[in-house]
């Protein structure tokens, strides 16, 4: 018994006893030992020998706590549901000291959708490997694909399709890196385009203890298939300026802007002109000019994490190109929203991080929601990080849609396991 007790308290005794000073470390004759160390191939900035493949995924459970007769049940799945959300795969390679290739794809179960006649469409095909039994198939979304060249320490150029550099959330698009289960509503509304295709230059320059980061973009802008075709010959421009300060261990302040034209139109048609000659004609379709602005602040001090964003978008349809929606024409106007997220990471219980998010949105007037509807939303939850690559989240969200025609509560309970691999 005494033996067991001694074994148990031995570490404490060992720590409590003054440890005899260790003899000064014997420094090996450096020239002899170091000569045996092989550093061949350990260049400071080597190219990758292989493509790096990694990614992230998440699986969630979601329950909407609203009456089935509520209008919200018409917009969101009302049954409590398990769902596989993101399955994203990256393939990156540093081609040489200055060239880098980056690809991110997302595997989808889509197209699964509610059709115009309110039935559900799914995709199946006969499986030749299983006696032609039906097999469900899905698609692939190319999230990012670009080639990058580092001109110097302060300037890098990307060409391809990239996430729009605005605010905090759009770049933090991987579910393991974001704190709640869902993004704020205003981020999902894409007041800035989430992705763009074209050129992106960025860099950073220290100014004393501050670091000034910048981004500038020249792209096709928003469009129905912006990754492969600009429908209006009007290039969009955007930019971001971020100041990384030494205040409070590191406060980041950012400003973002975007200006572009959206166009969606039917394909060109060949017609006969007054002289009887065949001519190509381009239908007007739908088109609007827009600009977006955003401001954000991020404080990450030890276990405390606070971030906030304010985003606004102004949209003006061009003459003769206004969109027609249910109940009339789509309106011009200003759409804005803001959120603040506060979280605190504890060093126990799987590194749990309690968090809370508050959000206010002012939507554009619409036939469905009337004049100047608003959304007020709050979320509270827990984010666990039992391993750096594994994130477990649970949250409760309550929102109220308020407009002259609708006062609609919305409540949801969600849980998610997200992981990087």
């Amino acid at each position, binding site marked *: 018994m005494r*033996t067991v007790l*001694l*074994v148990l308290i031995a570490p404490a005794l*060992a720590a409590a006893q003054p440890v005899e000073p260790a003899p000064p470390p014997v420094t090996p004759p450096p020239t002899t030992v170091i000569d045996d160390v092989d550093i061949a191939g350990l260049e400071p900035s080597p190219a990758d020998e292989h493509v790096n493949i*990694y990614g992230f995924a998440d699986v969630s459970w979601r329950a909407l706590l609203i009456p089935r007769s509520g209008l919200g049940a018409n917009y969101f799945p009302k049954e409590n549901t398990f769902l596989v959300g993101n399955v994203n795969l990256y393939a990156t390679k540093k081609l040489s000291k200055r060239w880098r290739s980056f690809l991110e794809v997302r595997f989808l179960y889509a197209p699964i959708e509610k059709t115009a006649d309110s039935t559900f469409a799914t995709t199946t095909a006969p499986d030749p490997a299983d006696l032609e039994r039906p097999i469900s198939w899905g698609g692939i979304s190319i999230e990012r694909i670009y080639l990058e060249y580092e001109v110097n320490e302060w300037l890098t150029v990307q060409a391809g399709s990239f996430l729009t550099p605005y605010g905090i959330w759009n770049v*933090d*698009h*991987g579910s*393991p890196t974001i704190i709640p289960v869902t993004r704020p509503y205003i981020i999902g509304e894409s007041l800035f385009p989430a992705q763009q295709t074209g050129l992106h230059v960025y860099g950073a320059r220290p100014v004393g203890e501050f670091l000034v980061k910048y981004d500038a973009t020249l792209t096709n802008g928003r469009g129905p298939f912006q990754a492969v075709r600009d429908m209006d010959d009007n290039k969009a421009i955007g930019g971001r300026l971020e100041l990384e300060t030494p205040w409070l261990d590191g406060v980041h302040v950012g400003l973002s802007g975007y200006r572009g034209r959206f166009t969606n139109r039917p394909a060109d048609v060949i017609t006969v002109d007054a002289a009887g000659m065949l001519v190509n004609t381009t239908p007007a379709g739908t088109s609007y000019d827009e600009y977006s602005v955003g401001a954000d602040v991020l404080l990450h001090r030890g276990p405390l994490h606070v971030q906030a964003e304010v985003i606004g978008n102004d949209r003006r349809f061009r003459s003769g190109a206004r969109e027609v929606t249910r109940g009339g024409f789509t309106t011009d106007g200003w759409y804005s929203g803001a959120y603040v997220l506060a979280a605190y990471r504890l060093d126990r219980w799987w590194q749990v991080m309690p968090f809370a998010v508050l959000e206010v949105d002012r939507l554009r007037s619409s036939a469905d929601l009337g004049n100047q509807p608003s959304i007020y939303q709050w979320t509270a939850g827990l984010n666990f990080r039992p391993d750096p690559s594994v994130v477990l989240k649970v949250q409760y969200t309550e929102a109220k849609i308020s407009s002259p025609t609708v006062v609609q509560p919305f409540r949801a309970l969600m849980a998610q396991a997200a992981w*990087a691999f």
Partner: protein
Amino acid sequence: MCIRIVVLVTVLLASGVAEGEPRPLVVVVAKGSTVKNLTRTELKRCFTSSPVVIDGERLVPFNYPPGTAERVAFDRLILGMSPEEVGRFWVDRKIRGESAAPRALPSVLHVVKIVAKFPAAVSYIPADQVTADLVIVAIDGVLPGAAGYLLRPR
């Protein structure tokens, strides 16, 4: 017999504690480098993969594998992060598509040799491992041994 086992276990555990004691670290560059001083902010940026340029030369940091005594001490004292925070930091950066972590070398001897070879390289090693090919860099103007040196284990 029982007493001998207890003594053996005690000695083993006590020696483990002694081995875990962090050794004082120093930041080093190659002999001949123009870098004589780095601020904590510059070190933090450098070892979190932001470019740091001194006298027209971009510093190339070399690190140790996660969990090694040198790495844990440096991350805590300069980056202000625990091993768990460091793990999260690099996973999150990878998912965002940002630049990769500095190259990790397997041992202090590798670091000593590679820093001595490349003029732009910067790393940290136990103070008793400094060779004639290396120069110790002050942090915020403070050299090892002086009060306020950031890499002194606490």
